């Protein structure tokens, strides 16, 4: 077994927090909305509601929806929204030969997408089990596999728009220790749609590491390898590709779906993300807020880890941390639309990591 030599410690201290980002995942109880509807003389192809899997599923979802769009042989296509789903939809439409205009109220770097975790998490809570369409598993697998293939082209490039990193799960108690019963929940506890092991052939497996071959000051450790996005470089490359292919970006706010019928483009791919709850009155959209805290970058750290429900990952623009622990018996942030950064929560997450690294022998930091 490979030994994880020379792991640089993360300098986990609250005075190194330089940004806190909060956002709402576009969770949709029925799974992503991918249907087509006619508004006036415009064909609207929906592409939203990918929950915490937007970054992961974006290319595959875009591929499916652009195929629907191209069935009308349009010369020009409009894309509504410039998050990761909108941007990849626009690029896919360009690759299919269309001239594309993105209409958005926010530039890419201010969208909720860029406040996400940005890891390969294609199975992140796609739908409620009770409301998922019967073909969701098949649709999801197709999106996942097409995305995986498309992401390959960005691996190994300068600036690492996409990169792999080892990820360690650490614990002071055995991983199979029974969890305490969850706290009473004020809301019904959601049962999410189970996707099963459909992509095991492209997903690295977990390995148990014995204490003699890992450097962490805990008794129990596991390792896998995960793919993640470096937002700045990846976003920059996608925007550059979009402009290089003649794409236009128009800053615009839509107040009602009917306004889409007045666009000059008559084939429209609709990628509003969580805003669909307001613009399309889509009550299946349920807020699911999350927060990441960012510490000053440490290029010498080339791994991630999870300990006591706090996940840390070294990215090019910082050490990202996120507390994923449940709250009041519910997944953290489920049902909440609070997008206010919470400093106390950020510091609590960093202190968990600080305590872990303080137990390293001869910790140089």
């Amino acid at each position: 077994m490979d030994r994880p030599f020379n792991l640089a410690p993360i300098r986990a201290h609250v005075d190194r927090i330089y940004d806190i980002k909060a956002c709402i995942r576009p969770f949709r109880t029925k799974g992503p909305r991918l249907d087509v509807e006619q508004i006036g003389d415009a064909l609207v192809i929906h592409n939203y509601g990918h929950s915490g899997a937007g970054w992961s599923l974006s290319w595959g979802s875009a591929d499916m929806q652009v195929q629907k769009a191209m069935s009308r042989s349009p010369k020009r296509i409009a894309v509504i929204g410039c998050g990761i789903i909108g941007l990849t939809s626009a690029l896919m439409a360009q690759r299919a030969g269309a001239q594309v205009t993105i209409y958005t109220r926010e530039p890419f770097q201010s969208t909720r997408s860029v406040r996400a975790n940005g890891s390969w998490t294609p199975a992140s809570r796609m739908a409620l089990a009770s409301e998922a369409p019967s073909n969701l598993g098949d649709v999801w697998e197709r999106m996942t596999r097409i995305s995986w293939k498309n992401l390959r082209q960005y691996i190994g490039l300068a600036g690492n728009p996409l990169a792999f990193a080892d990820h360690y799960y650490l614990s002071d108690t055995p991983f199979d220790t029974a969890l305490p019963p969850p706290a009473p929940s004020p809301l019904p506890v959601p049962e999410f749609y189970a996707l099963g092991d459909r992509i095991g052939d492209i997903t690295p497996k977990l390995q148990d590491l014995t204490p003699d071959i890992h450097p962490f000051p805990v008794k129990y450790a596991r390792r896998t390898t995960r793919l993640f996005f470096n937002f700045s470089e990846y976003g920059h490359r996608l925007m550059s590709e979009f402009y290089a292919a003649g794409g236009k970006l128009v800053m615009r706010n839509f107040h009602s779906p009917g306004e889409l019928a007045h666009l000059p483009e008559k084939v429209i791919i609709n990628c509003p993300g969580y805003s669909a709850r307001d613009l399309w009155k889509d009550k299946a959209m349920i807020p699911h807020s999350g927060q990441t805290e960012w510490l000053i970058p440490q290029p010498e750290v080339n791994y991630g880890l999870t300990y006591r429900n706090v996940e840390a990952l070294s990215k090019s623009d910082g050490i990202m941390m996120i507390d994923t622990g449940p709250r009041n018996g519910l997944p953290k942030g489920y049902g909440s639309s609070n997008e206010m950064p919470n400093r106390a929560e950020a510091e609590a997450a960093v202190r968990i990591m600080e305590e872990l690294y303080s137990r390293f022998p001869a910790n140089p930091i």
Partner: protein
Amino acid sequence: MELKTVLVAAIVTVILAPGIAVAQKGRISIWDGVYTEPQAERGRVLYRQSCSGCHGADLSGNFETPPLVGRFMPYWSGSTLDALFDYVSTSMPMHNPGSLSPSANTDIVAFMLKSNDLPSGSRELSTGNLKAINFDSAKPVSKHARK
């Protein structure tokens, strides 16, 4: 209608249509003094309590929260005021959407209008006539004023 009348109407339309909003009969504009100063003041207090945490005390937003001044005008231009009111009523405040009363939301909308240098008037904004108020980005030129 006589041919002469039709031609005159067509010429007037061609001259006035590009880039200039023209007040339509029976409709009013956000530029017509659709709120009162006391109402905007009430809205200012409510805004500070419920909105300023994200949008800022001066409504300028931040990197991730949209401003309510500046681009606010072109973003809502072309709609009617009920669209803005409905959005505020059903989607805001973000952490607890729909939690404010209709009168509180009309007060907040009045404050937003004032903050964008739109003139006040003698009648309060109410939920009854929002759909008849055009959200024009510039003051419409009335036919009467062009004579």
